[in-house]
């Protein structure tokens, strides 16, 4: 009974995820593609839920649906000609891309075929998986955790530097610049008068 239900749930979720993934690349309207991506993420979250990784599922929805897709949609909306924007779906370089994609697919297929998958966890799950995850992140995996946060901080600072308005200079500097420009103009004017005088 349980086994059958699991199969039904898995194939429904996997089918939904794959169909939505196909829609992401096949749809002509880029906004529709972004929304199909949301469905893909939710399907993946459903599979996590099915595997009893509720925390991972919730975080998947929170970060991928709540943050990353919103970012993508914002990027789409800030580009020009919103409604009639259709993607160029084929380029002349498809003959390079196709073997590369096939090779990647073969590699992923080979790895997933040659791996011996665990059908049940090696150890029993801790009573509070979230708390255990937090403790592990703060002790055993502290370095990767910190490096990831430093990476995010660097990206944040980089974004601010890129977006900083170029003309935002001190008023004193601007005043000096104006004076210099004025002086230069005077010099040029003087030169002109001299030239005319000759």
């Amino acid at each position, binding site marked *: *009974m349980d086994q059958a239900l699991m199969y039904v749930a898995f194939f429904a979720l996997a089918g939904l995820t794959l169909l939505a993934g196909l829609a992401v690349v096949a749809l002509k*309207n880029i*906004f*529709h593609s972004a*929304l199909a991506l*949301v469905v893909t993420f939710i399907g993946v979250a459903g599979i996590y839920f099915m595997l009893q990784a*509720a*925390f991972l599922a*919730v*975080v998947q*929805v*929170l970060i991928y*649906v*709540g*943050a990353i*897709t*919103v970012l993508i*949609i*914002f990027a789409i*909306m800030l580009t020009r000609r*919103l*409604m009639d924007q259709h993607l160029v779906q084929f380029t002349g370089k498809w003959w390079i891309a196709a073997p590369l994609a096939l090779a990647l697919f073969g590699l992923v297929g080979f790895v997933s075929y040659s791996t011996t998958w665990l059908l049940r966890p090696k150890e029993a799950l801790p009573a*509070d998986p*979230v*708390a255990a995850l937090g403790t592990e992140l703060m002790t055993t995996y502290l370095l990767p955790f910190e490096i990831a946060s430093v990476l995010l901080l660097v990206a944040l600072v980089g974004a601010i530097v890129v977006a900083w308005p170029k003309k935002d200079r001190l008023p004193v500097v601007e005043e000096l610049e104006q004076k210099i420009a004025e002086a230069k103009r005077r010099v040029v004017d003087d030169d002109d008068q001299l030239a005319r005088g000759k």
Partner: protein
Amino acid sequence: MELLLQGLNSWLGQVLPEWLVTVIGMVIVITLLLLLPPLMFMIMVWLLRRGIARFADRFGPNRVGIGRFNKERTQQRFPLWGLMQSVADGVKMFTKEDITPAQGDKWLHRIAPVVAIVPTFMVFAVIPFGKQIVGVDLNVGLLYVVAISSIFTIVLLTAGFASNNKFSLLGAMRTVAQMISYEVPMVLALIVPVLLAGSLSLNQIVEAQGAWLGLRWFAFYFPLGPIAFIVYFISALAEVNHTPFDLPEADSEIVAGYVTEYSGMKFALFFMGEFLNQFLICGLAVTLFLGGWQGPGVQLGGVLGYLFSVFWFFLKTFTLYFGLIWIRGTWPRLRVDQLMNFAWKRLVPVALGNLLVTGLAVIVVNLLKK
């Protein structure tokens, strides 16, 4: 849910197989969870209209009740303080013309209001309405609420985009910018009760506030609790676009924001989503900071204890909702620059500092206990 299953099992368990009892229990719970939000919506709209009317020195809806009309057809037999106004409004919504903008994205325009209501209903499933009265007791309940609510953002963007109207798009962009900014202090404030209770499950957070006859609320953990509560409440107001943060639908600037091109029942769905979200932020504030269903009388055994717990939850929630009406009736709207500055320069530092001190306090208390 479990309580219901136990009851059903002892009642029907002899006659029916176990899986059928489970299915019956699920159907009952799902039906209740689908019925409760619209009921709350009707009561809230009525309360809001009566409340705002009082603040503006008017009467508000006070005619539509039940019973026969008098001879002049001005008054019904039982006016019921106008309680039936919401039903009349609902019928009116159904009879209105449904308009789809010709240049818009028809499919997205059609789907958006339906999808908008789904996350809101999903959140209702984890709110503990009373002692052991909760749809599903997820052990990551609080995170689930935050994650599901974030789907709402995308739906609003879709609605604004599909309408192909500059006011709709402006409203949607404003909403998203506001929701993303205020989500940061909100989540930072939400972690405080999680640290104090030591769990992400909403039910366990409520259980942790049960001491002192059900009055050991997290909002009373001075000064950490009150600060977190206030930061949460302010950012939650901004999350649901309530006054004074109602810029996304500022009717004096951009008509009605993302709902500009919606009419009839589709508009009603967005309207309902908005009201239910207001109910949910009040309910969540009550659950996390004001003791949830805890209160004097809950400790009683039998049916009385359960009744008391439901009573306390709804009393606290609607008291907070009255606060919302009060704010709506009296406060002006913020400007866009004030909105962003307030979120990033005031709320975030306060919430972050509060969180740090709370973490430290929890560690120190735990060490002292050992």
